[in-house]
């Protein structure tokens, strides 16, 4: 398997500034604190975690909407924060994104045709005539009718809009699609349709996905590898089926337990309490304040991500 994108010790800290005239940095929010993961070509990496755990910041870093505080992102072996302008342009065309809210991701005063063609226009990738053909081609790929081109976004439903957003993302023939909660704003049935479409497209076009979601079922349906984030750190990483059959980290077990709901609620596995503030995370293992299996060592020493079985990594003293 070829590696498409890899992050190394990726960190993003946001300063907390207080004061008006003589502002001072009072601390740092460690939104992403040393995250390493690898995207293999043609596969999906699913990133799960509760809200506020840093998933979206990872997405912003990969999309170059934010600069990392430290660490690197390698795309086909090149550090994307240290490449030249023309290479950067190439990166822009080979990485595209679909966001959560289809109502805010389409420019309200542009026709669907211009919306889909915009990445092509901005990157001057194709001459006018081929551009038009490409737009029609991607429209067919997302199963939308040809007459959608002349209409405006507000004339479409949420699912249709999400497919327009997808068509736009596909127009430059990217190799990596970043999907930030692509179906969580949609009805269940519409969401399932979009997910299946995404899976089909992955097969047809050999796309690589970085999928971010809080819904475990979505992640399971789509992903080949899974990473679980908690307060800016990856706490567990494993191939999909391995993760769902043998979750190791107590947090992952709690998440899966909360999602299953079907059987009796096992008292110990319930996730209780609030996520601690990322401004002042607990010492040792960040999760120890909510962990059912907490030992003394957990509040003192921070566990590192280590490989337990083939390809299954976990950051926990107890595993």
């Amino acid at each position: 398997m070829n590696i498409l994108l890899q992050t190394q010790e990726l960190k993003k800290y946001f300063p907390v500034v207080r004061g008006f005239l003589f502002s001072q940095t009072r601390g740092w929010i460690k939104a992403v604190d040393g995250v390493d993961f690898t995207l293999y070509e043609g596969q999906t990496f699913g990133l799960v975690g509760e809200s506020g755990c840093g998933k979206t910041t990872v997405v912003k870093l990969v999309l170059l909407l934010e600069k990392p505080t430290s660490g690197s992102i390698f795309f086909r072996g090149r550090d994307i924060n240290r490449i030249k302008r023309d290479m950067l342009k190439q990166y822009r065309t080979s990485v595209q994104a679909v966001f959560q809210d289809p109502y805010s991701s389409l420019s309200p005063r542009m026709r669907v045709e211009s919306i889909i063609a915009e990445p092509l226009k901005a990157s001057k990738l194709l001459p006018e005539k081929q551009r038009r053909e490409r737009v029609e081609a991607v429209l067919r790929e997302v199963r939308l009718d040809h007459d959608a081109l002349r209409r405006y976004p507000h004339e479409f439903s949420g699912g249709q809009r999400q497919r327009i957003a997808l068509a736009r993302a596909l127009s430059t023939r990217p190799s990596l699609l970043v999907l930030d909660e692509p179906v969580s704003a949609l009805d269940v049935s519409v969401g399932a349709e979009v997910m299946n479409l995404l899976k089909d497209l992955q097969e047809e076009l050999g796309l690589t996905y970085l999928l971010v979601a809080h819904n475990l079922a979505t992640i399971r349906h789509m992903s080949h590898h899974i990473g679980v984030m908690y307060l800016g750190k990856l706490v567990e990483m494993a191939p999909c089926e391995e993760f769902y059959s043998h979750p190791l980290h107590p947090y992952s077990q709690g998440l899966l337990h909360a999602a299953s709901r079907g059987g009796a609620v096992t008292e110990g596995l319930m996730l209780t309490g609030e996520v601690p503030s990322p401004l002042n995370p607990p010492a040792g293992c960040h999760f120890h304040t909510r962990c059912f299996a907490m030992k003394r060592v957990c509040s003192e020493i921070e566990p590192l991500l280590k490989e337990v079985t083939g390809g299954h990594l976990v950051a926990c003293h107890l595993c």
Partner: protein
Amino acid sequence: MKYKGLKEAVRHSGLSLRRLGQFLIRRKGRPGYIVIPIVILGLFVFVGAFGPLLAPHSATETNLSIRYQPPAWDADGSWKYPLGTDHLGRDILSRILVGARVSLTFALLAVGLAGIIGTLLGLIAGYYGSWIDAIIMRLVDGVMSLPLILVAMAIVVVFGPSFVNLLIVLGCLMWAFYARLVRGDTLSIKEKDFVALAKIAGCSSPRIIAHHIFPSLVHSLVVLATLQIGLVILMESALSFLGVGIPPPTPAWGVMVADGRSVLDIAWWVSLFPGLAIGAVVLAANLFGDWLRDKLDPRLRQV
């Protein structure tokens, strides 16, 4: 019999005073009074375009033998000069009709100039943020704190009164309103996903501003510009009245009001009619602007 037929016809056509009243006050829950300002503004624009063709007399030619003719309905008046004449024997009606063009072009140009400067600076401040934003917004605060009329007077006194000077002065003082509005809107629009996605698509900043942010601002701008038209006409009239506006013999409404100031007790019509014209147009522009705001952008109520 004849009248009965007419009454019958009116009834069948659905026209009645009562209906007209209902129409003007309330129509499908919304005030229908808006017809009046629209008619006044329409008339204003029409007269502004064709005024000189409609005027029965020259607006600038003087004839001292007919000075201070009263309006037509006065015992001494004649229909030759329906609204009377001023201290130089010029026809008031003709001067109002010709003066409409001065007010209209001035208002459009001043609002346009202020709008262009303000929108550009507001977009830049809102989009780029940081120190650029700080500089532009402090400039806005500075301009906003100036007493408009006083500064306009001072500048015009230095550079001499002329149409162009007055235009530049008002344009350079009133852009701040637009900059503040546009910056605020830009700040909220730039956080929308479609702007992030445009960046991801590789769009340049000018392209994002022009294609994604500006189109969402247009209706706030239209509302503000409409409200500002009334204000600009008022300012221009005030400055002309004070003698630092549009210089004579151009028939500006403000100058005309000033002309009759000293003779209000014997020739009230010289000041009254141009004053009414100013009042009607400014009121109509404000009412129309308010209505437009409620329709397009109720959020703007504080402007």
